[in-house]
Structure formats: C-alpha cells, structure tokens
C-alpha cells in the first residue's frame, strides 16, 4: 500500500515538473520514514553525507573538467587529422576516421556528449561534403559518440564503481576490450554500407606529419591508459594528470584557451557535478536502505526461481537495461538499478566488473534510442537537424551495437583481457 502511495506521489511530482533529484529525494525520504524499520528522514541526510564524504568521488569532477577543456581546444581537431590520414584510401574512410577519432577522444574524455560534440562539430560538415547522407552521418556520430562512456575513463563506470563498491580501475580496464570491439563493429559497418568510395590514397609522409603535429594529443590516452594499466596511477591520480595535461597542452602548447574560457569551462563542470552528486548521494541512501531491508537478497531468491542459468541472467540484464535506457538517463539508471541487478548476476557467477561493463554498454545504446536518448537531443542542438532525421540514422546503429553487447555478455574474456 505504501509502495503504491510512493509511486503515485512520484507520478504527481513528475506531473508538476519536478527535477529528477527532487522526485528521488521525496521517494527515498518516504521510504525512510514509512517503509524502513527504525529509520527516519534524518537518516536520509546521514546517508547523503556518507556518500559525498568519500575519496572515491574525486576523479569525477576532475575528468569532467578535463573533458570540457579538451572539447573546446585543439586536441579533438589534431586527433581527427591523424585518423583522417590513417584511413585515406579505405572505402568509407572518412566515416571510419570519425569512429576512430571518437574512440581516441573517448580515451581522454569520460563523457558521451562531450565526445559527440567535440568530434561531431568538426566531422559533420566534412562528412556531408564528402557525400554521406544526413541520416547516415547523424547516426554515425551519435553512435560513435557513445564510445565516450565505454572506453576509459568513463563517468558512468565511476558511478557504478562507487554505488556497487567495485574497483573503478578494474572497470576502466574492463571497458577497453569491448570498446575496441564496438569500434571495430561500427567501422566494419561503415566500410560495408558507406555510400562513398575510397578518397585519395594513403601517404606515409602525410600521416607522419599529422602524427607529429598531433603528438601531444595522441600521447594523453597512452599516458592515461598506460598509467592505469601499469598500476602507476590510481583513478584519482589519472584524473589529475589528465586535467593538468589538458591544461598544459591546450593552454601553453596549442595556446587555444584563455582564462575567460576556463571560467566558462569551470561553470560547465560545476553544473554537471552539481547535477550528479546529489543524485549519487540520494541513490546511495536508497541503496543503503535496500541493503538494510534485505531487498536484493529477497529479489535474488524470488527471481532465482525463473532465472537460474547464466544465459537467462545475461538476457534478463540486457532486456531490463535496454528498456531502462529508453526512458532513463544513464546516471539515474546506473545508480538506481545496479544495486538491485548486481546480486542477481553474481548469484549466477557473473563478476561485478563484467556486470559493470555490460551495464555501461546497454545504457550506451540508450543514448541513441528514443524517446530520451540524450545523444539524439545533443545532435539536434549541435547539428540543427530534426529529431526524426536523427532517429532514422541512429536506429540501424542500434542493431550494430547489439552484436558487441551480446559478445561481451557471453564472452567475459573480452572484459578481463586487460584486467590485472
């Protein structure tokens, strides 16, 4: 009965146009007050404080700021130049270059929309000039932009790591294999269906010049991933190195950002962090109360009657998260659903790191599925195109992205290849 009241209350709040964070606050407060044993609203604030008072949160704002700096500066353009030269002579080369540029930019930014906006704003006019259709180009950019949250660093993976107490470094390493697989799948699809034949031919000299000019941009993913993989950096150290490197390269080497730009970037960073942190803290409180009440254990016991094989568990996880991706933003979906789904998966022998990577891949697809696929809306804003045109281009890409998702779900070796 109380559950129905909370559900109806949340519906009424949404009808009155309340932000997600306030809907969640009221729902979790009601659970503390009326559902949980020996609890009250004050415990909500206590849990809120315990969630934000943790060292593990530190990389999030650092990576957000580093991503903002890199998306405004020259780094994206330099990476694109390298990829364009590398793919010259290949059928659909510019489309493949776009995917590779997104993949390499993803390795320094933890955000999908930053990757889409940074690479897309440069490549969109270039791809249209080359003869690619609008829907194809938009679908390509939206889907390749999602690599931003799969290839490490990844802000959603950090959220998953914090809310489920899973190693963020292992999650980052686990994302590399599936990220490369998805990059390959998208590239092969482009080569197969690209309406444009090969452009020019590969020139080792031009490629070397592009690499020379873009060296500092190319070096950052190497430093970051190498540092994390070798164990030299923790996630926090990697985030600080990324931020300082981005500042030095953009500010002093490429001389592309001014103090005024920095203020604006800081504002964008605080805005995103101020959106995420309260959501994370409220979800943390929700998670605590679920755990205290034994909900995950009860749910595993109940669902275990039907979901009693790894195959069924993997399929359930994918279906639930794909549906969630249609309607929820990535952060909320991870924070609310992961603590509930993880016990179900570990009961069937899945590793939390594996589940984290699968979760990210599913919600990555949610970025390009209507009605609330965020990359679709970002593309509307950045490229000034209609929602229908963008969706028409994105839907074939969803089918392409499902293949690496299934491979990753049932072939864990691809996740654990880089995990030490």
């Amino acid at each position, binding site marked *: 009965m109380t559950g129905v009241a909370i559900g109806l209350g949340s519906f009424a709040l949404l009808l009155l146009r309340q932000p997600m964070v306030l809907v969640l606050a009221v729902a979790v407060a009601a659970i503390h007050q009326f559902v949980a044993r020996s609890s009250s609203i004050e415990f909500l*604030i206590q849990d809120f404080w315990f969630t*934000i*008072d943790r060292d593990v949160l530190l990389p999030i704002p650092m990576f957000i700021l580093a991503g903002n700096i890199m998306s405004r500066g020259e780094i994206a353009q330099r990476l694109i130049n390298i990829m364009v030269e590398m793919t010259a002579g290949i059928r659909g080369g510019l489309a493949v270059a776009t995917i590779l540029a997104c993949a390499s930019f993803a390795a320094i930014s933890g955000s999908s929309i930053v990757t889409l906006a940074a690479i897309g704003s440069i490549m969109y006019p270039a791809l249209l000039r080359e003869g690619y259709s609008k829907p194809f180009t938009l679908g390509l950019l939206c889907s390749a932009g999602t690599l931003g949250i799969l290839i490490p660093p990844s802000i959603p993976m950090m959220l998953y790591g914090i809310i489920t107490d899973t190693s963020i470094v292992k999650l980052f390493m686990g994302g590399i294999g599936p990220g490369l697989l998805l990059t390959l799948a998208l590239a092969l699809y482009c080569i197969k269906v690209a309406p444009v034949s090969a452009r020019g031919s590969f020139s080792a000299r031009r490629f070397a010049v592009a690499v020379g000019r873009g060296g500092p941009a190319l070096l950052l993913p190497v430093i970051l991933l190498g540092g994390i993989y070798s164990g030299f950096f923790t996630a926090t150290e990697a985030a600080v190195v990324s931020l300082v490197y981005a500042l030095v390269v953009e500010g002093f080497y490429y001389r592309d950002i001014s103090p005024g730009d920095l203020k604006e970037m800081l504002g964008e960073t*605080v805005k995103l962090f*101020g959106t995420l*942190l*309260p959501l994370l803290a409220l979800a943390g409180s929700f998670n605590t109360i679920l755990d205290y009440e034994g909900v995950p254990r009860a749910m595993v016991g109940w669902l275990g009657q039907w979901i009693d094989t790894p195959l069924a568990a993997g399929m359930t996880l994918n279906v639930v998260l794909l549906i969630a991706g249609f309607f929820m933003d*990535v952060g909320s979906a991870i924070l609310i659903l992961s603590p509930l789904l993880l016990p179900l998966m570990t009961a069937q022998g899945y590793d939390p790191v594996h589940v984290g990577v699968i979760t990210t891949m599913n919600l990555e697809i949610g970025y390009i599925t209507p009605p609330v696929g965020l990359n679709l809306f*970002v593309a509307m804003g950045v490229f000034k195109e209609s929602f229908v045109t963008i969706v028409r281009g994105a839907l074939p890409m969803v089918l392409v992205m499902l293949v690496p998702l299934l491979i990753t779900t049932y072939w864990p070796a691809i996740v654990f290849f880089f995990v030490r």
Partner: protein
Amino acid sequence: MQTAAEAGNAGAAGGILAVLYGAITRLETFLCFAAFIAGTAALFADIVGRELFGFGIFGAQRIAVYCMAVAGVLGFSYVVSQGGHLRPTILDKLVPARLDPLVTRLGDLLSAAICLGLAVASLLFVRGTYEIGEYSMTLPIPIWTVQTMLPAAFAIAGLKYLLFVLRPALRPVQASSEL
C-alpha cells in the same frame, strides 16, 4: 486595472527580488568555483609531492574531498539557476499548454517546499554532529563546519525557487545536463 503607482511599486519590488537573486547567485558561484579550485590544487600538490619529492601533503586528500563536497552540494543550488537539473518531460503533454505557466509556478512552489524541508532535515543532522562533537579523522576540524553547507545549499535552492514563484522572469530556461 493597475494604476501607474501600483505598477511602479510592483516594478520596484521585482527589482529588489532580482537584485537579491543576483547577489545569491554570484555568492554561490564564487564559493562553488573557489571550492573546486582549492580541491583541485590540494590534490595536485599532494600528487606532485608524492611522485616527485617522495612525500605528500598531510591531509590534502581530505581537504580535496571536503572542497569537492562543498562544490558539488552548492553546485546543486548553482544548477537551479542554470536550469540544468535533469527533468523527465514525458508527462508534460498531459497538462494542457494553456496551463503551462500555472503548472510551472506550482512546480516551483513545490520545489521550494521540498528544498526547504531538506534544509530543515539537514540542520537537524548537523546539530546532531555538533552536539556529539565529532571531528574529522585526519584534519583537526569539527565535521559540522563542513556539513553546514548541506542546509545552506538546500535553503539557498529553496529560496531561489521561491523567487521564481514571486518573479517568474528570473526563472532560467530549462537546459539539459547529462553524463
């Protein structure tokens, strides 16, 4: 019909609300940015010290955590001014368009009530910490001094929503913000 004098009074009252809103926004922006920069600097100095000179700065990581907590929680209120909080729009069409201004205003009133409720709950929590005299594990400071930002941020956000109810022109355009 509104007389010229009444219109003048309304304009002056609106002006005062706008000045108040501007002052609140500027102060919280300054505090957010300062906390963010201080946290980043502490963390950077600690890492440089550890990696290059073999010794870190005592308590730097904790300072960074507190600074980022301040930046993030005050950031909650900062985002209110930016219209950036995630808001599911799926039910918007259930309300007729002609009622939009009314629903928005009612929504702001409700948001103000929720935020002020959270501010009161936070205040009770901080009072509890103050009364037991809890200190930071690493730094020689009472925890309640940092926790005070919780009721402050919720109260400021609540106040802003109230100002939107009183003067809808202050309300920012909704913008999306995501991962």
